[in-house]
């Protein structure tokens, strides 16, 4: 039994790492703009397809395809901001961008349905079925090791960028007070664009690593994004550290609920936690002042 419990811990950390990558993008955008981007799920899907086609159609290396998906995600983030968020932001409405991203999401899903078709793609990376046997009968696939490694590295780089670089500090300044940041010579529009690019790049990269795990269809990202929203709320909207902890927590909860209760109840457990957080600790796991977020 201890082997199984340990194995479920490994499983939980793997999927939690992926959740974190997807949820971080959402929390970054919320932290800076106080807006929710519903099209984020479709950037994940498009990232997965970009990696798939790079690997299987163009014969590229899977590890390189993660970088390709990152670039595709970044480009899509730039496009979504330039075409939707930026023009609507100028009109001063908070509701319009929200609704527009729902529209963008439906548009992207249906475009992908036309481009890629409805039949699930078998996206197996060279590492998907290569198993590394660990101690006591536990195991991990190389694909999952890549997920943990890339996620950890990305989170560390993002953290360093936000805390140590001028651009990162400027981004935080915009999140705290956009007008004052503007008076200090920071161009908020450029930094908002940067936020979108970083957030979507993370989503695209997450898609490339989720592809070999997900059932890859044009609707693949939507199955992950609901959990990502829950993670953002549990972690505290706009709070990067909270999102990381909440992502890993949700991954572990899912694994242990599957083992000890029933996989059909994982959503109930996760969303009960979400409701409990909203009722008892609406600021999220790490209660900070909003200006300290991002």
């Amino acid at each position, binding site marked *: 039994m201890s082997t*199984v419990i340990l194995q479920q811990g490994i499983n939980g950390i793997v999927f939690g790492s992926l959740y974190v990558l997807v949820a971080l993008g959402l929390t970054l955008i919320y932290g800076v703009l106080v807006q929710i981007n519903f099209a984020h799920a479709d950037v994940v899907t498009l990232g997965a397809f970009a990696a798939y086609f790079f690997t299987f159609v163009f014969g590229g290396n899977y590890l390189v395809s993660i970088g390709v998906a990152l670039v595709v995600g970044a480009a899509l983030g730039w496009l979504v901001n330039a075409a939707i968020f930026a023009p609507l932001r100028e009109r001063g409405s908070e509701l319009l961008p929200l609704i527009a991203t729902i529209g963008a999401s439906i548009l992207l899903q249906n475009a992908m349905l036309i481009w890629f078709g409805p039949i699930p793609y078998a996206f197996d990376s060279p590492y998907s*079925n290569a198993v590394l046997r660990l101690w006591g009968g536990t195991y991990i696939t190389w694909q999952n090791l890549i997920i943990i490694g890339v996620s950890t590295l990305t989170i560390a780089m993002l953290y360093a960028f936000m805390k140590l670089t001028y651009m990162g500090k400027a981004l935080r300044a915009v999140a705290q007070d956009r007008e004052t940041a503007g008076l200090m010579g920071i161009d908020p529009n450029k930094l908002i664009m940067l936020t979108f690019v970083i957030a979507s790049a993370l989503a695209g990269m997450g898609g490339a690593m989720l592809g070999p795990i997900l059932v890859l269809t044009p609707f693949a990202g939507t199955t992950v994004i609901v959990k990502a929203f829950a993670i953002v709320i549990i972690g505290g909207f706009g709070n990067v550290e909270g999102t990381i902890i909440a992502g890993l927590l949700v991954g572990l909860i899912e694994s242990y609920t599957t*083992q000890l209760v029933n*996989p059909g109840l994982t959503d109930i457990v996760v969303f009960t936690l979400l409701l409990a957080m909203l009722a008892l600790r609406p600021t999220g796991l790490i209660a900070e002042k909003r200006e300290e977020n991002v």
Partner: protein
Amino acid sequence: MDKRSSVFFLGAAAIIALAGFTAEASAQDKVIRIGGLFPMSGPGAYFGAQDKQGIELAIDQLNKTGVNGYKFEVRFEDSACSPLPATQAAKRLLDQYKPHVVIGEECSDATLAVMPLMAQAKVPLLNAGSSSIKVTDPGNPWTFRIMPNEVMQGVDIATNAYKRLNARKAALLYENTNAGIGNAKVFAETFKNLGGEILAEIGFGRDVNDFTAIATRVAGLGKVDVIPTYTLEGQGLRITQALAQASVTKGGGGQAIQLGTIWLPFGFEQKAGKAALGYVRIVQFDPTDKRGVVQDFVGTFTAKYNQAPTHINAHAFDQILVIADAVRRGATDSQSIRDLMATTKGFAGVTGSVEFDKSNQNIKMDTIHYMETLPDLSWKALGWN
């Protein structure tokens, strides 16, 4: 041209135009309108894409000569394998297209949702892909099914697992839908009655992506002989791979044999890869069947689409042929299609035979074909039915 001649020519022209109109109207009337309710989006969209191919091939062939002076046309609506979009799609079809007969859906929940609408409109619904017993038991007089229901499939699979595979311990994996729960329940009851033991019944939603945790739980059960699995293709692929990674199934060096259902399309093994080794599953169509009707279908399908047909292509093809058979015997409208379909006997389609019982369920078991996945990922027909 004088006035009398002008009147004559105008009159003649009017008569010719009227005759032409009448002839055209008559030709239009000699069409059987078939509504197609299939998932074109969402996780079951692969059904719709393949159903469409089989249906269009059948209609192309039938319309070359017509049947009893009737031609066939079809309009598809996306029912998304889900109750709400299915009812909306059914209403659109009934209101706008006014079909004589409707075929579909594939997913039981969606089929169950549209059945009352069809009964109310008195339009027969011919189903080929839903396994829930509720579709025909109690069902309604307007719903027909050519596919073996969950009881027929479940009893057969459980019996073969126990008697032919000598399985004594099973773990059940199923999606939490009417069909998933129903199929698993029938297997469990039959297997236990035969003396087998069910170690775990694990249900999950269609939104589950990662099956590593479920495979770990199955691995923790100890010795498992068979793992009947009831899912759509996408989740089925990931389950098969996760079970192999956890060394549970033969594909991963374990002992357990995964048992699959009619739900999975052909090509599943190639997508799942080595993990599918030893997988035993039932399909509704055996392309190696030597009957002329099967080989003709394989040939014409391959020529038209440049790919081999799947059992989803095949059962969609058969749906049209069952309707055409009723038209051949004199059906002209919804009521007569219903009445004559109910008396179908000795119909030999590409999936097998069709003969309906009082609840409009096909009673023929030769539509169930057992296949085993070999190391080169090809199939071996086990010939158990």
